[in-house]
Every structure is written in structure tokens, then in C-alpha cells.
């Protein structure tokens, strides 16, 4: 399958597309459950804190009820997370070899610091009510919540490095990226921005869920005491979190690297560099063939403020960034040539020094592998082609970003209105609760689109500027991929249906019956057999 004549041979493009499809499917699906886990774990811990401080049992009932819903969701987060941990090795073997020295460490530390914490204590959260004192149980709940948040931290340190690969260098002896400064990887500004943004988004998700379910109860005058308190907590927590998610959006990291700048320019469909501060295109129809955006509605200054947090720094446009990529491709070809020489003779001092000077651009030369076997033979037209390949799909990014931001702003308004009404003396109006129920899908839409903007916007790179996605797959056959994609789709769909049904049934049933949640009454034909003697 692999062409073994030159270094870095490319695979069947269909295999690459299928590998990407599989990763996107499993990651997006996993990410349906994770944000809710993040948000609910913290909210449950807050409710239990109130219980331990006031000893009013309503707060314990709330903790237990939301805990049941948390548990149904947590199980699928864990189940789908198993796939994620191994998928890099299964479908992205060359990626795993190429960057495992850097990327593997945060993943392993995530296991040590986060997964053990949440998974060990989540069992006691459910099973420990009778065995632990109230304070000890509260500690267990907070440790579970802490574990889920640590997990977000470490996976985003890993992901931040894919977007901004700091603290590492290519080693020609081992043909891979190796760590030079672990602290730089740890305190990567892109990772920090992503962490705050993603965790806040998770809190918004949890708050919206609690708000919607409580609103549904209040509309029906059921479990009013529990629902009222939950509604207020959700509104307050949601308001703070949605402010954080918007104000601390992860665009602050977008000024850092060429690809991040490109992502920003593509989100904005900004073809030419504008004078600072750039305007924000509220809406328009971007066209890759004409290099312009038709029917644009612009808001002056806005983009400059979002992208640079200043009014005097320029944001480069797509055309300028493509020109810059051409220069980096030519520099990368020098690195590639030196690497080929080093492969023949590892002690060639000239080649080693040339490689050291240009190794930062090696990835750009590898972009040419899509068009020809040996990047050193590339003509101007091919270099042009490769340079244009660094532009991700502008239209999908442009629209996804706008829908995400719109969802966030609507949610902010929903939380603000909810909190304002609950603070007033008189009875809250019914439309308030209806609005809360209707808002339920918004965080998931925003979160999935946010993932898409971050990762689709990273294309054509799997590691920005270092390794193109099309070189990173495993040496698998298309049938292997088709089989596992079909398998995962089938299993995940069945589990999704079951989870949604259980969740809705648990919500319908309400807090008083928190364990067995469907109304199969003992004595029906089906259940007679459940008595201890019947099965023998």
C-alpha cells in the first residue's frame, strides 16, 4: 500500500477521508456527553454544599435527583471515551509515532490525575450515601467534579499543542517530534484559552439542562420546591458561565500562529488585510472562487477587538497568509533536502546545520506530497497549489462560527431574563419556563459547532505547520475503516436511543422514584419471573 521509495509517502485519499470521518463521528458523539458531565458535576456539588451547610433535606433530594440524570449521562461519556483513548493508535498510527513523544504525555497525565479521580469517586457518589458522613460524601462529590475538570484541562493541553506546537523540535535520528520544553507545552496560551472556553461551555450546557428540566416541572406545577431552587441555581450559574464563555472565547489564541491566523481570517471570510481595527462581517456569502464575500453586513472595529484585543494590531487576510505559506514551503524544501541527505549520511555537518535552520518549515514541504513524490522537484504551480491548500473551507467556518455565537448570545439572554424574573417578588410568568425548555438544544448546537470550527479550521494540518493530516493515518485498508465506521455508528445509535429514552423517562418520573424509572408494575406477566425462585 505504502509507496516506500521516498520519505513520507501518501496514502489513498479515501482512507484519509474515512479516517477523518470516523474521528469526527466518534469525537462529536463523545462530546455530546462530556460537556453535560462537566456542568452537572459542578452544579451537583454546589447543591450538596448547600445541603451540608443548611442540612435542609430538599437540597439532598436535589443532589440525588440530578445525580441520577448525571449518572445516565456519565455512563455514555465513559463508554465513548474508551474509544477516544485508543483511536489515535488505531486510525492515526503515523501521527502517533510522529508526535507521541509530546502528545502522549498530557494524555497519560489525564489518566493519572483526572480519570482515576473521577472514576474512583463517582462510584462512592452513588453507593456511599449510607456509608459516609454528610461531609465525607460532599468531599467525594467535589473530587468527582474536580476529576472531570482536570480531564478537560489535560485533553485541551494536548489539543492546544496540535493548534500551536510549542516546546518541541523534529529529531532526524528518530524521525519524529520530540519535547524540548515541557513547561511551554503545559502553559501553551492556546491551551489555556481553550480550557477556560471549553469548561465554561460545559457549565453553560449543565445550567441549560437544569434550567430546561426545572422549567418543564414548573410549567406542570410538579416538584415545585425542588424545581424552583434548581431553576434559580441554573440561572445564576448559567449567567456567569455564559459571560465567561463569550468574553473568554478562545479567539484570544488566534493571533499566535499562521494557522490560527488563517482560521480567524477564514471564520471572518477576510480575504484582504484591512487597516486596524478590522470590521466584523455579521453576515455575507463568502466565495472561494472570487475571493470575496457578497452581501456582507459589516460592524466596524468589532473583529479587531475580538481577534487582537486591541485597536491598533492588524489581522492579516487570507491572500497575505497564502503568500507567506509559499515562502515557508520553499524553506521547507531545503529542510526536506537536508533530511534526505542525513538519511544517507547521518554525519553530514552541512546538511545537519541546514536542517536545523529550516526544520520549522519541514511540514510545509510535506504539503507538496499531495501533488508529487519528491517536493524538491516541485514547480511554481505546484508550490502555488500547496500554498492555497492551507486555506480551510471558508464558508463552513464562516457560518458555523456565526451560529455558535448566536446560540451563546441567546443563552446569555435566557439566563439573564430567568435570573431577573426569579429575583422579583411576584410569580414568574409561564412563558419564562417555556423559553427555558425551548433553549435546551442550544448549548449542544453551539458546542458541536465550536469543535468543528476549532478542528476543521485546523485543516490541512493535523499538527499545525508540522504534519499534514493526509500523511498521518494508519496503513489500513478502506474496508477496515468502512467496517469500524459502520460498527461504531450502529452501536452508538442504539446507545443514543437508549440513553435519551432513559433520560426522558427519569425526568418524567421525577425525583421521588430515583432508581427504577419506568412504570412496569409488579404483577404483569413479564415481571413475575423476576422473583428469586422463578429463574432457577
Amino acid at each position, binding site marked *: 500500500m*505504502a509507496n516506500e521509495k521516498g520519505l513520507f509517502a501518501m496514502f489513498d485519499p479515501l482512507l484519509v477521508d474515512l479516517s477523518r470521518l470516523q474521528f469526527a463521528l466518534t469525537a462529536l458523539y463523545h462530546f455530546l456527553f462530556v460537556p453535560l458531565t462537566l456542568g452537572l458535576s459542578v452544579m451537583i456539588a454546589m447543591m450538596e454544599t448547600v445541603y451540608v451547610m443548611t442540612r435542609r433535606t430538599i437540597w439532598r433530594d436535589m443532589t440525588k435527583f440530578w445525580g441520577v440524570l448525571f449518572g445516565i449521562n456519565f455512563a455514555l461519556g*465513559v463508554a*465513548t471515551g474508551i474509544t477516544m483513548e485508543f483511536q489515535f493508535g488505531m486510525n492515526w498510527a503515523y501521527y502517533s509515532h510522529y508526535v507521541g*513523544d509530546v502528545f502522549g504525555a498530557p494524555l*497519560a497525565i489525564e489518566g493519572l490525575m483526572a480519570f482515576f479521580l473521577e*472514576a474512583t469517586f463517582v462510584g462512592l457518589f452513588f453507593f456511599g450515601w449510607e456509608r459516609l458522613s454528610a461531609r465525607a460524601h460532599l468531599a467525594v462529590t467535589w473530587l468527582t467534579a474536580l476529576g472531570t475538570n482536570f480531564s478537560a484541562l489535560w485533553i485541551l493541553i494536548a489539543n492546544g499543542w496540535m493548534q500551536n506546537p510549542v516546546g518541541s523540535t523534529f529529531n532526524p535520528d528518530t524521525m519524529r517530534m520530540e519535547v524540548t520544553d515541557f513547561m511551554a507545552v503545559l502553559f501553551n496560551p492556546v491551551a489555556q484559552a481553550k480550557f477556560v472556553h471549553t469548561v465554561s461551555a460545559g457549565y453553560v450546557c449543565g445550567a441549560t439542562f437544569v434550567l430546561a428540566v426545572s422549567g418543564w416541572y414548573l410549567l406542570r406545577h410538579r416538584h415545585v420546591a425542588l424545581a424552583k431552587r434548581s431553576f434559580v441555581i441554573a440561572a445564576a450559574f448559567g449567567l456567569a458561565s455564559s459571560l465567561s464563555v463569550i468574553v473568554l472565547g478562545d479567539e484570544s489564541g488566534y493571533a499566535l500562529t499562521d494557522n490560527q491566523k488563517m482560521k480567524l481570517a477564514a471564520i471572518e471570510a477576510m480575504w484582504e488585510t484591512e487597516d486596524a481595527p478590522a470590521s466584523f462581517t455579521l453576515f455575507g456569502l463568502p466565495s472561494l472562487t472570487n475571493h470575496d464575500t457578497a452581501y456582507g453586513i459589516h460592524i466596524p472595529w468589532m473583529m479587531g477587538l475580538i481577534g487582537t484585543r486591541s485597536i491598533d494590531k492588524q489581522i492579516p487576510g487570507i491572500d497575505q497568509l497564502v503568500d507567506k505559506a509559499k515562502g515557508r514551503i520553499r524553506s521547507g524544501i531545503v529542510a526536506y533536502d537536508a533530511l534526505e541527505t542525513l538519511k544517507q549520511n547521518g554525519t553530514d555537518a552541512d546538511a545537519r546545520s541546514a536542517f536545523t535552520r529550516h526544520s520549522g518549515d519541514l511540514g510545509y514541504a510535506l504539503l507538496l506530497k499531495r501533488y508529487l513524490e519528491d517536493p524538491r522537484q516541485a514547480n511554481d504551480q505546484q508550490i502555488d497549489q500547496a500554498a492555497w491548500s492551507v486555506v480551510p473551507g471558508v464558508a463552513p467556518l464562516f457560518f458555523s462560527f456565526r451560529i455558535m455565537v448566536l446560540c451563546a448570545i441567546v443563552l446569555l439572554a435566557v439566563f439573564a431574563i430567568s435570573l431577573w424574573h426569579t429575583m422579583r417578588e411576584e410569580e414568574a410568568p409561564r412563558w419564562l419556563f417555556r423559553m427555558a425548555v425551548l433553549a435546551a438544544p442550544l448549548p449542544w448546537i453551539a458546542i458541536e459547532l465550536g469543535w468543528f470550527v476549532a478542528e476543521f479550521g485546523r485543516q490541512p494540518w493535523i499538527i499545525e505547520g508540522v504534519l499534514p493530516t493526509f500523511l498521518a493515518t494508519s496503513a489500513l485498508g478502506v474496508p477496515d475503516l468502512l467496517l469500524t465506521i459502520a460498527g461504531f455508528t450502529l452501536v452508538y445509535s442504539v446507545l443514543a436511543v437508549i440513553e435519551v429514552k432513559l433520560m426522558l423517562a427519569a425526568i418524567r418520573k421525577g425525583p421521588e422514584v430515583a*432508581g427504577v424509572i419506568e412504570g412496569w408494575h409488579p404483577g404483569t406477566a*413479564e415481571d413475575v419471573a423476576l422473583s428469586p425462585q422463578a429463574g432457577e
Partner: protein
Amino acid sequence: MIDFLFSYETLRFIWWGLLGTLLVGFAVMDGFDMGVGALLPFVARTDIERRVAINTIGPVWEGNQVWFILGGGAIFAAWPALYALSFSGFYLAMFLVLFALILRPVGFKYRSKRASRTWRTRWDWALFVGGAVPALIFGVAVGNALQGVPFHLTPDLRPIYDGSFFGLLNPVALYCGLVSLAMLVMHGAAWLAFKADGTVGARARTIGPKAAIVSAVLFAGGGLLVWTGLLGGYRVTSPIVWDGPSNPLRKSVVADGGAWLANFQAHPVLWLVPALGILAPLSAAAGFRAGREGLTFLASKLAVAMIITTAGIAMFPFLLPSSTAPDHSLAAFDASSSRATLRTMLLAVGIFLPIILAYTAWVYRVLWGKVSEKSIEQAGHSAY
């Protein structure tokens, strides 16, 4: 001293040991969960019995499973070439393992949510698959590693697997799968005997000794396979450079049936490990019969640890030998991460592993005591 401790050579050796520790940790901790899953249809027949069996592991299996996840992460961080090659090479086998393991979290959580008998029986089968299938496949994987796996590396170190899924299912590898399954069934039975009251515990005490004796006999038979050279063996013929760059293409290796005995012959004290691999399951079998559940479970843990360690020692310094291009085999001295990463990760393990062990011990202490039909009925909805 610090220089010696953190030299590339020492770090690689320590990480070889830590790889073994994590695999043993996984087999000892999550092994009894898988064993309970595999035993579920046999030790528990009615719903309340199944609930007893499930609730012995209900609060702890989730933490135990993290040993598996951590194993994946640690191999990625410390042995990236092994991570890249093994999971893409064993692609469909790995898919089966994931499929089976995905069933467990949902199985535990969702089974008790409805009282319907069909519903619960279906999840019982899911839990059975989630226990038995990985137990078998992990053994098959070790069997293939011992024989050598058909793969080669391109000059840019891209791993290319040259075999097929069905090639993995050769008789010798399947035999190793049976060793693993028997061992984890013994381990699950030892846990149930220790933790489950009443009928479930009694059935575990009947099945346990049989599984333990089968484990000991199959493991000893595996020794014979090594002796005859059927279970492979590889030898490094070029000088081993322990502190060189991680590039598996710079050594010479030959296939040599019987080479897996070389480490034991060179250091006879190592024979203690396989000896305990036979004696420990036999003591577990005796323990089951004598009704000493605590000691039985300890013996079972020791058995699991020693059986896995035997395979590790036999292969040292190999991690994954290649049957089609032996020179490309992955070894502890040429398939690791950089020195900096190994050092950082050692620090992380040094800080977090003791903390993990401490709170895990605390959780088991809180949950101490037998699970009985009565305790399940009393616990009501806070049990599975």
C-alpha cells in the same frame, strides 16, 4: 546518583518495568471485573442473584477500568512506536475489545433502570461479552507478541502491518487467550467468593478451584510451548545501545526458538516468577476449598501478576518482535520516548500513583463487607 537515576538507559529500564506494572495493575484490578462479567450467567441465575454479583463490583469497576485507559495513555507517552503499531496492527481485534468494553459502563448503569426481564437479560449478556471477550483477546494479543507479529517499518518509521485479522487467531495465540480467560475467571471467582454472600458466593467457590487448576495447567503447558520453540523467541545479534536514539531500524535480530528462555537461564533466580505462576493458582484452588476467601483472593492476585510478568521477562528487551522483518522489532532500548519525556512522565507517575493507590484503598475500605441479597433489597435504588 540523580544522573544515574535519570540517565536514558535507566529511564528506559524503569519504564519497561512501569509498562509491566500498569499491565499487571490492569489485570489485577479490572481483571476481577472482567472475570465477574464472564461468570455472570453461571454464578447467578435469578435477577436478585445477578444483582448481588453485579453490585460486588458496582461501585469499583469504573475506577478499575481506568487502569486500561491509563495503560493506553502511558504506552502512547512512553512507547509511542508500540502504541502506533500494536493498535493499528491489531485493528479489528482492538475494535472488538472496544466494542465489548463500551457495553460495560452502559450495562452496569442502565440494567437496573427498568424492571423488565427482557431488558435485564439483554444487559446481562452485554456484561458477559464485556467481560469474556476482552479477557480472551488480551491473551491472544500476548500470544501473538510472543510469536512475533508480521510487520515492518518504512525508512520514515511508518509502521506497516503485513498480516491479517485471522492471522492473529492462530492456534498458539488462541491457546494464550485461554490461559488469560481461565486466569481471569479464577480471579473473578476469587473476588465473588470474597465479596458475595449466599448462593453467588457458594457457586463461585465451586467454579473457582476448577478455573485455578486449569490456569496453572495451561500456564505450565505454555512453558512447554516455549521449550519446544513453538511460542517463538528472538535474539538481538548486534551490540545493544541502551542510550541511543529511538530508531528501531538500527539493530540486527534473528528468530531463535527457545530464546525466550535465555533470560531465565542467565539469571536463574528469575525462575521464581514462573514457579509462582504455577504455585499461586494452585494455592488459590486450595484456598477456595478451605474457605479462606481473603487468602484466596491474594493468591489469585499473585497468580495474575506472576503469569503476566513471566511473559514480560521472557521477551525482555523486546516489546513487540517482528516475524517478517525481525530487525525492525520494537525493543525497550529503541522504541521509547525521548529522555525528556520519560523523565517528565516518571515524575508524574511518582507523584500521582501513590495518591491514586491511597484513595483507591480508602474507597475499598469504605465499601468493605459482603454484598448479600438482603443488603441489595435494603439498599433499594442506591444499588444497581
